[in-house]
């Protein structure tokens, strides 16, 4: 049984995290919660563990339809990349972004400076 195959999505008031048929994660909506690491962090932890269990070497996270986030939400992506660094790069995360959105262009550009090759951007 695939690790990702056992996971369901997460739906909150303004944001949903859905797993596509290929297992990639699609995040859409807005994240302006006071503590997104508490509300969404545990789900990302499950996704991470499932990706590792599946033995994937690359994992796509599509944020093109994540239209707005607060800075606390950016921490979710920072922590994810740092975790990959700390665990010896079990896989590479591919952030699929929409560079026409200011926050996506600048945030992921800076996130890339946290790692040599645990993450890359695809636009």
């Amino acid at each position, binding site marked *: 049984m695939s690790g990702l195959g056992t996971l369901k999505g997460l739906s909150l008031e303004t944001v949903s995290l859905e797993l596509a048929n290929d297992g990639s994660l699609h995040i859409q909506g807005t994240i*302006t919660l006071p503590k997104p690491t508490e509300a969404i962090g545990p789900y990302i932890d499950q996704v991470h563990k499932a990706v590792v269990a599946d033995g994937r070497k690359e994992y796509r996270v599509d944020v093109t339809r994540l239209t707005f986030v607060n800075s*606390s939400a*950016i*921490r979710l992506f920072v*922590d994810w990349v740092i975790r990959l660094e700390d665990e010896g790069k079990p896989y590479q995360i591919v952030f699929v972004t929409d560079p026409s959105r200011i926050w996506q262009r*600048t945030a992921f550009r800076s*996130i890339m400076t*946290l790692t040599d090759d645990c993450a890359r951007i695809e636009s």
Partner: protein
Amino acid sequence: MDSAVMHEQHTDAVWLKFRPSWAYIDGIREFCGFFCNTTLSDRRFTERVQLIAQELLENAVKYSDHASTSSVVIEMLIERSKQDFMIAVSNAGTLEMVDALRKEIATIASMEPQEAYSYAMRRVARSGTSTNRLGFARLRCDGQVEISATMTEDGRIRVEARGTI
């Protein structure tokens, strides 16, 4: 807000006062976006304004004294003739809080905006704290504004962001 400013033909302005509750923030950010979009029909500018409003409002609500009867005030001026704008948020606070804000603003202002954003991310990574301190770096980088913090005569912290449209 200065009444002369309010009546200036080429100036659009918003002034809102509310109790420091997180529940207001989404609605006020959306209203600021609606206001900007109606004024200028510029999606990128609207996106910048919403981001600035969100970060400043969150900061004010987080650090307000929730036990008191204090309020948060947001002001926004769009001066079309000068092609510039200002967003300021104020809340009750102490001199020590203003000093801490000024120190953080000076640190962020000492670097290029994208470099400051990367610096702020490196600082928060592996920090083990729930505090982000990404806000001011994000205001400079995404909002493309200069930031200042002052203590007003009536004992309020005022954080102001200024930039060009």
